[in-house]
């Protein structure tokens, strides 16, 4: 098989998807009487125009990197962790709560404690679907979807009825955390013109490297990938599929939880009632799919999506184009990533030996996968 051409296709698919998605977004703008050039112009200006907006774009990318990494780890083991938003929410609430309960602790103790417990909360939230999948064969897709809503309502309940009244300002939001628990760094804030970018970004970059190392250079990572490719063969080779599955979900959930932690201790400095699932959950999934799960891909996709999101806000104020067009474009981009088969087939037309290449694409495409809703036997 010609691996080089397949690699080229693997790189071209996301790039083409982004281009098509943005072009369709432009067509949508045009059809409603907006000028796409002004639109995208004000988008770039709002996302990258000055230090402050660059800082906000980096700030927006931070949780996306975490949730996308979370999705990719579980996905390598053959799982769809759609519960990222619930796990992030658990991490957010927990970290803020810990910070509020122990405001007197020195920063060196409190901050790591709040971050770690937030990650732990996400890990626990993800361990449940992992355990159910490993020991009962229950579909993780359904369980994580259901848990998103359970966690959404429970988080509101926790804030309103369990958290002591002295820790919250109203029924809608908690107190601000103390400086000892904050991820904000004065020099970083100053460097980026007073934006909310924070040390979470540094943690996210470290996480990118660590996850890459974990997946490519450690036994556990090897096992996770192996179970994802073929759980039966891995079992024969002496790996415990069950343990690997639970571990991959725990890591995935911890990363998603950290996504929530950086929102709580970094961006917002408190917790407030959420009415819908956190968008960083599904956006993180989108980032991971676009970046095809690789560290570099995730970094670039997260940056791209934050440019779109932060820029979209500027587009609304600058060019009067509703912000939601950005989310439509993001959905379209993922749509084209999802139907990559068609793009791959189309690409073979431009390659030498197009017939041979077409066959390769079809062979890869028709390899059976055992992802069914009720969960395969393990």
């Amino acid at each position, binding site marked *: 098989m010609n691996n080089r051409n397949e690699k080229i296709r693997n790189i071209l698919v996301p790039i083409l998807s982004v281009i098509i998605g943005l072009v369709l977004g432009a067509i*949508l703008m045009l059809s*409603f009487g907006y000028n796409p050039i002004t639109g995208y112009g004000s988008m770039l200006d709002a996302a990258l125009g000055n230090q402050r907006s660059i800082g906000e774009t980096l700030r927006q990318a931070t949780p996306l990197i975490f949730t996308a990494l979370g999705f990719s780890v579980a996905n390598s083991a053959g799982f*769809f962790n*759609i519960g990222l938003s619930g796990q992030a929410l658990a991490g957010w609430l927990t970290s803020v709560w810990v910070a509020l309960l122990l405001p007197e602790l020195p920063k060196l103790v409190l901050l790591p404690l709040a971050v770690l417990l937030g990650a732990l909360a996400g890990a626990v939230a993800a361990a449940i679907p992992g355990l*159910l999948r490993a020991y*009962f*064969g*229950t*579909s993780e*897709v*359904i*369980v994580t*979807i*259901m*848990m998103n*809503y*359970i966690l959404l*309502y*429970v988080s*509101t*309940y926790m804030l309103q*009825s369990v958290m002591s009244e002295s820790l919250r300002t109203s029924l809608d939001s908690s107190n601000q955390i103390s400086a000892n628990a904050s991820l904000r760094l004065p020099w970083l804030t100053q460097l980026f013109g007073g934006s909310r970018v924070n040390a979470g970004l540094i943690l996210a970059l470290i996480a990118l490297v660590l996850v890459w190392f974990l997946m490519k250079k450690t036994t556990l990572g090897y096992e996770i990938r192996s179970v994802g490719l073929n759980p039966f063969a891995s079992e024969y080779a002496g790996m415990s599929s069950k343990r690997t599955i639970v571990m991959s979900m725990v890591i995935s959930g911890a990363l998603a939880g950290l996504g929530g932690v950086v929102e709580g201790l970094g961006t917002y400095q408190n917790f407030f009632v959420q*009415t*819908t699932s956190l968008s960083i959950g*599904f956006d993180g*999934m*989108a980032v991971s*799919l676009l970046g095809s799960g690789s560290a570099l891909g995730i970094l670039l996709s997260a940056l791209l999506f934050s440019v779109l999101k932060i820029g979209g806000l500027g587009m609304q104020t600058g060019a009067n184009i*509703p912000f*939601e*067009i*950005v*989310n*439509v474009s*993001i*959905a*379209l981009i*993922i*749509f084209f*990533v*999802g*139907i990559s*088969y*068609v793009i791959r087939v189309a690409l073979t037309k431009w390659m030498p030996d197009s017939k041979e290449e077409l066959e390769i694409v079809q062979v890869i*495409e*028709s390899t059976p*996968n055992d*992802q*069914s*809703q*009720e969960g395969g036997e393990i």
Partner: protein
Amino acid sequence: MTLVGIIALIVTSTLVYSTPLILTALGGTFSERSGIVNVGLEGIMVMGAFSAVVFNLEMADTFQAWTPWLAILVGGAVGVLFSLLHAVATITFRADHIISGTVINLMAPALGVFLIKVWYQKGQTDNIQYNLGYYSFPGLDKLPVLGQIFFKNTFLPAYLAVVIAIVAWFVLYKTRFGLRLRSVGENPQAADTLGINVYKFRYAGVLISGLLGGMGGAVFAQAISGNFSAGTIVGQGFISMAAMIFGKWNPIGALGAALFFGFAQSLSIIGAQLPVISSIPPVLLQIAPYLITIIVLVAFLGKASGPKANGRNYIKSK
């Protein structure tokens, strides 16, 4: 409040909250019976709700009291169009069903709110003028006790939804179309060998889910929320999916589960007015549908789960 009055209140509000779930869960049943997982039900409901509200606002003067009923059909039609995206992606273009469904869920609220902002210059529509109000069955509402509970000031679409559920059961289990639809979801290869057009039946399954899901969203918007915004449909599509699973992919089961989930939903809203119930924290009632679904999934594994080929793309061999 008298006991009968309390029961009537519970029954009516259960019917109101169940109807969107019944319709959407039935839609999901058709899609998954044909082998296409549809996590996009939520997005389809959003589009149904959006189009019904817009139609209702724009056409209220023309159609008067008929507006909400026509709007349900409009919601269904838009649902079909939107589900076509899922159908093309999964059936023809071999996309992963979960990814495609998630795209539907990401796109629907964005597109809906975008259009609302373009057309009305704000993120939320006005309240609709004609909603799906209460209806009394002439004659039947005079019955003692039962009349007051089931037939006086009750919710007519709920009764239609029950009829649709029975029809859906009949179609799936007693007609040739239903047998073929189920066969492509169980074993597409075998069905194909017997000359059944797998792709055609899968398209039919997904489009029916779009129709019923869109109608479900339209009913929800016109009976419960009364307007459209990003927060109109929050989780109802996923509760419907849960009802479909809880009902073991059977229309009558889905009907029962949707009624039960509608009951839990309505209790979380009206519970404060009722004795005993008001002492249960509403959060328990809110999470009940989701929690029960997980428990049921864990408990009933192995006994007649979903269709065999659910979620698997069928690639016709040459």
